[in-house]
């Protein structure tokens, strides 16, 4: 929206852009802090690229989840779907008749099937998204263990080639202690992240569908009165998030090369945290897709910092929790200050007592 804002300078920044800006600034500050504290590792470009290389699946899932959250929904099945895809792909590739393209089709197919099923139940039968995607989570987990319980290491030659494929940037890199130049390497997953980011961010900004998602998330009732097909819009958001979970699954196995019961377990919670840190509000209507990678990276950099500091790993989880809490409260404060209204936590109705319910509670106290 920067271009539009440039015409009239005085126009106030939209909430989506403000929260994105805050997320971006916090990320930059945090990365600068990391560089100052641990110049040895964080000053290397490879460290930055590795954040993408190793966490591409999480970023991809977060992208899809952000779209659902902007539309006012939630999808907690994505981690399990992603895990199911890795196992299904590994199983297929090792079956002897597998091919890379077949595995890609399987990944997309599983994602779309989950997306369509959950989207239909949520949008057209109007069932709480939390419940539906929770059952989707269990379903995917169950299918995963039914398919295969033990880890499958994919040894198919074509696949191993793909797994080990790296794009080497010869002009960028660092010298090690011996003075040998080590160029930076980028995994295909990172390229997929960039492509998806461009496609989905453009979709949300310049397509009719994208704007409808914002409208539905802002006020579904009004959106309906304005002539938007609310149900179809919601449905499509879940299909997209299923699709990105499928893609994330394939990227996952492309990075690790193995199907495992524990793959991407709990990734949905990290994705939700990343989306929120990246400036997407849980109650819908506000968010910027560019914030999705920013949020994920912020979360990861903090974890890296803690690891570099040599603190026990359980502190990472605690710090992630505190960080998330800090962001939700910060966003709520900013939003209430901007709209000059009473402070309310920026949470969807099903996660908080509604004002009406609070009033009732007071009435009877």
């Amino acid at each position, binding site marked *: 929206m920067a271009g*539009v804002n440039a015409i009239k300078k005085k126009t*106030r920044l939209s909430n989506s852009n403000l929260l994105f800006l805050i997320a971006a600034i916090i990320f930059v500050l945090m990365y600068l802090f990391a560089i100052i504290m641990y110049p040895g590792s964080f000053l290397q470009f490879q460290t930055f690229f590795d954040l993408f290389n190793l966490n591409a699946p999480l970023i991809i899932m977060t992208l899809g989840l952000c779209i659902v959250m902007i539309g006012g929904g939630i999808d907690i099945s994505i981690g399990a779907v992603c895990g199911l895809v890795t196992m299904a792909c590994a199983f297929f590739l090792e079956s002897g008749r597998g091919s890379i393209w077949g595995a890609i089709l399987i990944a997309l197919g599983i994602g779309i099937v989950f997306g369509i099923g959950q989207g239909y139940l949520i949008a057209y039968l109007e069932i709480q998204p939390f419940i539906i995607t929770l059952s989707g989570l269990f379903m995917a987990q169950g299918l995963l263990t039914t398919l295969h319980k033990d880890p499958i290491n994919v040894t198919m030659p074509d696949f191993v080639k793909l797994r080990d494929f790296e794009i080497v940037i010869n002009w960028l890199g660092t010298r090690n202690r011996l003075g040998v130049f080590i160029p930076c390497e980028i995994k295909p997953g990172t390229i997929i992240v960039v492509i998806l980011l461009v496609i989905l961010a453009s979709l949300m900004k310049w397509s*009719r569908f994208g704007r409808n998602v*914002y409208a539905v998330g802002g006020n579904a009732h009004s959106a309906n009165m*304005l002539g*938007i097909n609310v149900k179809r819009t919601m449905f499509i958001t879940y299909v997209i998030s299923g699709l990105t979970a499928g893609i994330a699954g394939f990227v996952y196995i492309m990075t690790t090369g193995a199907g495992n019961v524990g793959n991407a377990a709990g990734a949905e919670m990290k994705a939700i945290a990343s989306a929120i840190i990246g400036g997407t509000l849980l109650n819908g209507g506000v968010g910027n897709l560019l914030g999705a990678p920013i949020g994920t990276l912020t979360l990861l950099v903090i974890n890296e910092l803690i690891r570099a500091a040599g603190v026990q790993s359980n502190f990472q989880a605690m710090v992630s929790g505190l960080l998330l809490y800090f962001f939700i409260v910060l966003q709520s404060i900013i939003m209430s200050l901007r709209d000059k209204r009473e402070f309310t936590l920026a949470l969807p109705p099903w996660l908080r007592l509604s004002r*009406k319910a609070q009033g009732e509670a*007071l009435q009877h106290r």
Partner: protein
Amino acid sequence: MRGISKSFPGVKALDSVDFTLRPGEIHALMGENGAGKSTLIKVIAGVYEKDSGSITLEGKPIHFKAPEEAQNNGIGTVYQEIMLCPNLTVAENMYIGRSHSLLVNWKQMNEQAERLLASLNIPARATQELSSCSLAVQQMIAIARAVDMDCNILILDEPTSSLDEDEVHTLFALMRELKERGVGIIFITHFLEQAYEISDRITVLRNGKLVGEYETIALLQIELISKMLGNELDDITSLKKHEPDVSDVSIPVFEAIGLSSSAGVRPFDFTIQKGEVNGFAGLLGSGRSESARAIFTADRVTGGEVRMKGKRVKIKTPLHAITQGIGYLPEDRKGDGIIEDLSVRDNIILTLQVLNGFFKPFSLKQAQEFAEEYIERLNIKTPTADTPIKSLSGGNQQKVILARWLLTHPEYLILDEPTRGIDVGTKVEIQKLVIALAHEGMSVTFISSEIDEMLRTCSRLIVMKDREIVGELRGSQLTESAVMNVIAKGGKNRWAD
């Protein structure tokens, strides 16, 4: 529109109503709660289908089955609650849901929006986020959207209810501009002054029936009020009122000085004596409920001070108010009053239990005794005290809530529309009960939209209009015409040119 009727199960919402809108006129539609205003405009807007009657638009008979059909025929509706998305820009709100192209052309959309905003003198920029606009501007943007969809008829359903005076002025300027262009506007409001300032004609509805259509200039305010309220008196035995002992008025039970709340009541003073029954009279939206809610701190109190028996107290929450001996029976019985799935007994002891503390529960036996005492005293018709309250009739539900408050033995009880939607017999019972309570020394504030009911029970009426107190009547002054006179004459003519 000729002879429009519409029934809902159990209610005849519209009974052969005629309505005519001429091009380029602003036509105010007025009436009290339940008069059928909303039903009428929803029939016009295609939200409801009429049961009988005919609608003609520019000479052609029409029959709308869905809101889209009405929109396509040039009938735009802007509802009281703004139906726009706060998180989108002004321009998006004006054009979203109307185009069929896959992509959004931001540049073109913003240019078009700027032109439209400029032509209607709406003080907003196309690229602004809607939530950063004032409510009035949001309302105007909703109107601009309707206008841009080529509407000849614009329905505005209480557009001014949440606007301040300046905002109302801006909105009126826009309405006049549209009138110049030949748009016919139906304007629903409960602010009399606004109807007089802007409208050319007024149509009054009462209880689903047409009272009449009048030229605004030719209709005196007092006539309008009497037409809206009607003069039907229920023929029930007149009750003997309780007049407080005049010698005992030294210290009022409750006194408020300059009280105001976030709901927008202007600062008001208020006192009530021991054993007095008084009431806030006024039309819907005059601030009668808001004043009561301010006293009980059900809305956030923004100023003023409060004294109980001469002693200054700070009441911050409804719980404070309850412990100070104030009870409040809310207007919205379903939303603020009953807990549907709990039994009659649990609903009765609820407030007392809260006062007693959750860690000292009443024994079942004790609770049952309380419940039975009040079921008998108030003549609550329920099979057992264990029956869930939702299976009781409205009148009996109301009695249960009354019992809940009486059990806490408040010194001062506020009853906000205690008789709405309940049968005549129960109404009289509740009125009698109020007077009996006053005899026992309780102070009661009684609010009702039925003036004759208040005249029968209250010994003093505080008359409100447009959210401020405009007069006070007592003793022999308490007649229906006197109340109407005060409403008509009261208040500054704030919207006069």
